[in-house]
């Protein structure tokens, strides 16, 4: 390994090569996010089951997925799933990443949905029943319109969180920015500059999005007069602190 300091010519040589992976990284982020949004709904439905043993089982499955590393889950889908007897089949790296990371984050998204539904006041449920709404009408016209909007900023935060987890897919060969930076490093024995480029690309993309979601959240809170959701509260206060 060449043990000299920062090299600008390496930086400029690596830049276009690393940038080529940005489309893949962003595409994978969007695909995985959409998968998690849809699959999260499955968890929400499963947690609504009234049959105790099943409810308990799914709660633990969810807890298991949430508290074990997404990297291992990714390896499981990519390396192990093809080897599973009867049901297993081989998947390409891109699809494996969507499944592995998507299932991991769907458990979090499912919680967001649940918190949104639980935040709808008891009176609304009672009113829907008192007015003799059908189950479908109750959900479509009363509950969901009130449950979904407050969760939008949280869902936005998860998009940014997932964007930052997506480079894990470079470990199974998805040719995103991190994967290309590592390839450049392996070919030229210079890792520092290409990895710095990756970090810069992440900053440039995620920082403005975070600010955008913050604004959205503040607008939402004004509109719905809702209490802050924890976790995003601190970011909001930071912006207020910066403004004052």
């Amino acid at each position: 390994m060449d043990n000299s300091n920062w090299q600008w010519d390496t930086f400029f040589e690596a830049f276009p090569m690393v940038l080529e992976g940005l489309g893949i990284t962003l595409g994978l982020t969007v695909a995985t996010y959409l998968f998690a949004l849809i699959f999260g709904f499955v968890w929400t439905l499963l947690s609504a089951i009234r049959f105790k043993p099943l409810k308990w089982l799914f709660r633990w499955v969810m807890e298991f997925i949430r508290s074990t590393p997404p990297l291992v889950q990714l390896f499981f889908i990519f390396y192990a799933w093809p080897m599973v007897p009867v049901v297993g089949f081989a998947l390409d790296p891109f699809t494996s990443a969507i499944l592995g990371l998507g299932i991991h984050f769907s458990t979090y998204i499912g919680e967001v949905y649940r918190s949104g539904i639980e935040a709808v006041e008891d009176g609304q449920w009672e009113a829907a029943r008192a007015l003799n709404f059908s189950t479908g009408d109750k959900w479509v016209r009363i509950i969901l319109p009130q449950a979904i909007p407050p969760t939008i900023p949280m869902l936005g935060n998860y998009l940014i969180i997932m964007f930052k987890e997506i480079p894990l897919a470079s470990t199974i060969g998805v040719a995103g920015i991190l994967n290309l930076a590592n390839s450049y490093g392996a070919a030229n024995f210079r890792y520092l500059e290409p990895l710095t480029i990756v970090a810069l690309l992440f900053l440039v993309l995620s920082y403005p999005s975070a600010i955008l979601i913050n604004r959205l959240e503040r607008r939402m809170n004004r509109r719905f007069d809702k209490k802050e959701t924890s976790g995003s509260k601190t970011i909001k206060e930071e912006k207020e602190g910066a403004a004052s």
Partner: protein
Amino acid sequence: MNAISEIFPVLMQGIGITIQVLIGSIILGYLMAFIAGFCRLSKNPIIKYLTTFYVEVFRGTSLIVQLFWLYYALPILFGIDLGSDYLAGVLAIALNYGAYMSEIVRGSILAVSKGQTEAATALNMSSFQRMRLVIFPQAVRMMLPEFGNYLIQMLKATSLVSLIGMTDILYYGDILRSNNLSQAPTVYFLVLIFYFIMALPLIWLTKKMEAASKKGVA
């Protein structure tokens, strides 16, 4: 079944490194959280903006990128070679989650100080007394639930150190898989079980922390 009895002891060899990285990250991570949280509330603009820069860089980029970056940058930029993989692993996880948790520290202190500062000033306390006796004890209680969640996040993050050649649980799992691909499902399922068993006490601790923060608060 006999596969499990072969795989289990091999994975056990990695537990030591996983726990070492976890404990190192937790200690350094919470330390960073408090230091950075307080520095961002500092009146000195240089301290404040330098800390803000650190927090935004580490929150705005990926943990895996930070890990690789530190792994290659430490020897090149800082001339640290000895045991740089352990240092890079712990530093990456601690700096990353320290940045996230510093926001919790800062937010909690701000939330408490809004109402309590005047009361403490009325009692003729110095600003240091005010922080130590009035604001900080109440703020810590507010931090607990979120701090608990980050314990599990940090455990999950330790699995990344296998990527820089550290011999943790996942590293041994990968070796077993590359030796015998057909065993992969059993291997990775056991690896997941290992992590889950380690997560259980942290989940329990998180629930305890949540309960403690609710206690006696209206």
